């Protein structure tokens, strides 16, 4: 307990955060990271291994670890858990058939001791596809009490802001294991930023 609070204080000074992006294959993790970073997303191969991107947001440096989601390499996710500040769980909202798989993998992840203390963001991706489940439904399926339903479209310009705001929220709010935000499209941004400042 004492050690943890000291580490947290040091972290606060450093303002450097380690963010882990995970989720089933085909959920769009790499696309999101590249999109946030303003890179070309027209040719993205399924991730064999992982990518790291460092993004500066205001006074924070976000180190984003984008780890491949194919079944074969899911067992390696745990190699990246250590010292994770934020966990982004990406869901393909249009993949109805694998929602159960998705929930199961997330549940397994949340049992992980090394991830307690990290904030969780569930990102309901692919909202622009007709027939996709709404963020609220994704939250319900994930079995997580969503703090708020936030929206985010992959092609939305304010994505960087939203994403970073959600991840750095840990610094503002007292850190709860599994504080959850579900993102979808930009409509309720105001609601969320209001939440951040309280």
């Amino acid at each position, binding site marked *: 307990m004492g050690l943890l609070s000291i580490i947290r204080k040091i972290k606060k000074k450093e303002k450097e955060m380690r963010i882990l992006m995970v989720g089933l294959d085909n959920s769009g993790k790499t696309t999101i990271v590249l999109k946030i970073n303003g890179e070309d997303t027209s040719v993205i*191969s399924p991730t*064999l291994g992982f990518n790291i991107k460092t993004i500066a947001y205001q006074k924070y440096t976000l180190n984003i670890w984008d780890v491949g989601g194919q079944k074969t390499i899911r067992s390696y996710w745990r190699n990246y858990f250590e010292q994770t500040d934020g966990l982004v769980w990406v869901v393909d909202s249009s993949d109805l058939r694998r929602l159960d798989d998705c929930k199961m993998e997330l549940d397994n992840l949340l049992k992980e001791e090394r991830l307690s203390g990290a904030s969780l963001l569930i990102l309901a991706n692919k909202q622009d*596809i007709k*027939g*996709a489940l709404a963020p609220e439904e994704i939250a319900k399926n994930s079995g997580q009490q969503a703090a708020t339903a936030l929206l985010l479209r992959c092609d939305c310009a304010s994505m960087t802001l939203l994403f970073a705001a959600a991840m750095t929220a840990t610094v503002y709010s007292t850190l709860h294991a599994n504080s959850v935000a579900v993102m979808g499209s930009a409509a309720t941004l105001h609601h969320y930023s209001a939440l951040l400042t309280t």
Partner: protein
Amino acid sequence: MDDEMEKETILDNKEAEAEAALQKKHLSMLDRLSKRQQSRSTTSTEPSTDSTSSFLSRFSQLKSSIESHLSDSQSLSSDPSQLKPHFDKISESISDLEKLVAQSSYFLPSYDVRSSLKTVSDLKRSLDCLSSELIPKKKFSFKNKAKASKKDQGSVLPESKPVRDSVQPSYVARDSPGFRNKTGEVLVGEFKESEIGEFTISDLDSCEVRIIGCIRALFIHRLKNCRVYVGPVTGSILIEEAEGCVFAIASHQIRIHGARRSDFYLRVRSRPIVEDCNGVRFAPYCLSYRGIEEDLRGADLDAETGNWANVDDFRWLRAVQSPNWSILPENERVGIVDISNSESMKEEI
């Protein structure tokens, strides 16, 4: 000063707590370590597969059993209905053998890996030879397929394994567009004007699927002996569990899981991937219909990237070619498949 004092008292309180927590942590660590030790020792007492000689003896045993099955085929040739399941069984044991090689490849000397892979490919070749000799090949054609597959069902059914006792998803899928639970049909979808979102093709047996126009995302699940011809998909395609199928698909991303004995004609912007696949072969996209050029251009898929041959196998992360997939030899490829006349087909159905 006050601040300092306060801090110290807090620290005092916490020290006791921390002590207790530390103790607990230490205990649990010891526990973990002893467990690990145990699991290690149990695995090492098991008949270790980590030895070259045991691998070689097992390999040769399997090999000779496959060879004897192969030589049995000639005597079975009088009964063609038995021949197909027989060959399927052999093909399965060959792929098991291949799997064994793959699993052992990390400790085998490279010579043994090469020679065993060669044995496997020799076995495959002789199986192919035998089956093409004993089972006359059907000519590729659309119209015959639908009828033929109906006729074939008698012989197809006995080999069909009971559907994997999969747990039914608790989430009841809403009425999303798709083709599901059909046998021996030609299924035609045209999405010329309105772009469609996600589309599902699942649980089909001996069907032919033709989709004209663009869709955003395509999910394919549990197909058997099907032909699937699809126009450009602007997002990604996910294929799970296909057996004995032919696919002509174009997309930005293509993922193939659990496919067996299937051919894929691809146009893809990124590298396609396979996982838990066996006997899958790849060739360039071969689909045509009136207006496909426009659709391909609209989906940014008009240029051939050559990526159809750059397949990544997640079960084979090595420099040598994966045994699970290959390039479809040019003389075995179907020509350009034209599905323009789907309208007339629809009326027939």
